[in-house]
């Protein structure tokens, strides 16, 4: 009698539907939660994150020079801008830029001559030229990516070519006048 009512009664099918819905929902949530550690395991592991700061001694870099070092296994450009290069970067109207930023926003206070960026082209990740001695710095005097011709200016800002953004400026902090900790 009760079972028949369960199957045929006007409001009773809802009871079974409810139980089924609740059971499947609990199982779905359980399966979803079980996936989380699997997905999370693919995020950078502790040893990768442990390499996330790099100390650079900048005392040997003369104005106009740049060095290429490594930060989180990515190339890092540290460049000592000349007053002329700073003036060139400041002369550009910010509104004309694809990714509008001033040199001041891209450097540390009191250290505006130090342009510290990742050496990773924001197009498809090649290493731009211009940090090494005698390398092509491109039409804007900053960096030039040989892969697809993106040109960056003396503030590491994208000026020409397919790259959508300025060279990324990592977090960094001058611990003294000659030592900078990146990351």
């Amino acid at each position, binding site marked *: 009698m009760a079972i028949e009512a369960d199957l045929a009664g006007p409001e009773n099918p809802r009871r079974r539907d409810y139980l089924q819905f609740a059971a499947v929902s609990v199982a779905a949530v359980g399966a979803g939660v079980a996936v989380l550690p699997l*997905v999370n395991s*693919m*995020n*950078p*592991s502790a040893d*990768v994150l442990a390499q996330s700061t790099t100390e650079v001694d900048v005392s040997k870099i003369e104005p106009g020079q740049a060095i*290429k070092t*490594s930060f*989180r*296994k*990515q*190339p890092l450009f540290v460049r000592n801008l000349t007053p002329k290069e700073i003036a060139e970067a400041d002369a550009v109207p910010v509104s004309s830029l*694809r990714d509008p930023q001033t040199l001041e926003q891209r450097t540390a206070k009191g250290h505006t001559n130090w342009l510290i960026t990742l*050496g*990773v082209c924001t*197009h*498809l*990740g*090649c*290493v731009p030229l211009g940090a090494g001695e005698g390398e092509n710095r491109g039409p804007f005097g900053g960096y030039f990516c*040989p*892969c*697809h*011709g993106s040109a960056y200016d003396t503030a590491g800002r994208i000026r020409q070519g*397919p*790259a*959508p953004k300025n060279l990324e400026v990592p977090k960094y902090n001058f611990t003294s006048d000659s030592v900078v900790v990146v990351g």
Partner: protein
Amino acid sequence: MSFPWAKHYEPKNPVMQWVDSRLPLPRFVYNAVGAGYPVPRNLNYWWNFGVLAGVALVCQLITGIVLAMHFHSSAASAFDSVNVGIMRDVNAGWFLRFAHANGASMFFVVIYIHMFRGLYYGSYKAPREMVWLLGVVIFLLLMATAFMGYVLPWGQMSFWGAQVITGFFSAIPVVGDWIRIWLLGGYAPDDAALNRFFSLHYLLPFVIAGAVILHIWALHIPGSSNPTGVEVKGEQDTVPFHPYYTAKDGLGVVVFLILFSVLIFFAPDYLGHPDNYIPANPLSTPAHIVPEWYFWPFYAILRAFTADFILPAKLWGVLAMFGSILLLFFLPWLDKSPVRSGSYRPMYKVAFWVLVADVLVLGYCGGSPAEPLFVILSQIAAAYYFAHFLIIVPIISHLETPKPLPGSITEAVLAKTGA
């Protein structure tokens, strides 16, 4: 599932009878690729390429499993384990490695011909849409597998290929950078990325094998198409797969193996890139990054977008590149012509060959440096590629007057032989 005149499996051997009554696996094989599968009698050699793709998959699985026994998936030792260990120290390692690397190229040659066969003869049309859709899925899996395999030797092209391809994902707005770091397990390709690529490179071929089984299953519901595109009308239109097409495919396999051997033994590095014999160096980009030849047409589409239009150019490039493949999923519904075979479609036939030429141009551009001439050429060719599927094919299916179709497969065959 099959035509009523299909032969039934009747094992004479008592062992096979015993097995068949408990697990009908021999029966399954007999009905799939044996005498139990009736096939149109007029298939030409373009129909070899399905079986050839299966042969290529098996070659890759076997050489790959043995290579994995000698490979080290660590950024410090992967390059040496391939270029010193496998190529010099492991017995016959050079053969396995060249067979596997060139086997990938052979696989793509076969797959591209197989796909263009389907395009010319309208094999994607009802009732075989599911065969086509599964085929596109297999193609996507194949590309993912090939890409990850190319990363494993950890040479300069491996590394920068990984950097560029995972860089596609950073084009996704807002979450792109996070997705890329998650995919790589770090900020640049390194141990974490190499290990997971190796894991997936080992897994995906078995996923492909599973998808191939579904592909063949879906094919066997309506049965194979044929060069006339006219459906099978009776027993006189078909012959059993075995021995007729096992023999015809067998000849194709021999030719395939000859060409494969020529590559392995006489030009093993012809399709490779010399930069990949330089160990990966995260601080120095090769002057000219190119993927393997089989990705060139898609690479050309990626690079064809150079100007921002609402979205950044880079995102357009990535969307167009994936779109160029995803577009194939819609083809069965874009081509409304009831006539399958291009042989009876005068306008479609022209459009087909123009598309072949267009893809070759894209391939040529994709393999060339990004100089202005090639960029413009890729832009034109990429635009035509999309126009072919989205505009030309739908319009042709309305405008075209197809040639009269033969009454049956047998009639077409007899007309050809003059009997």
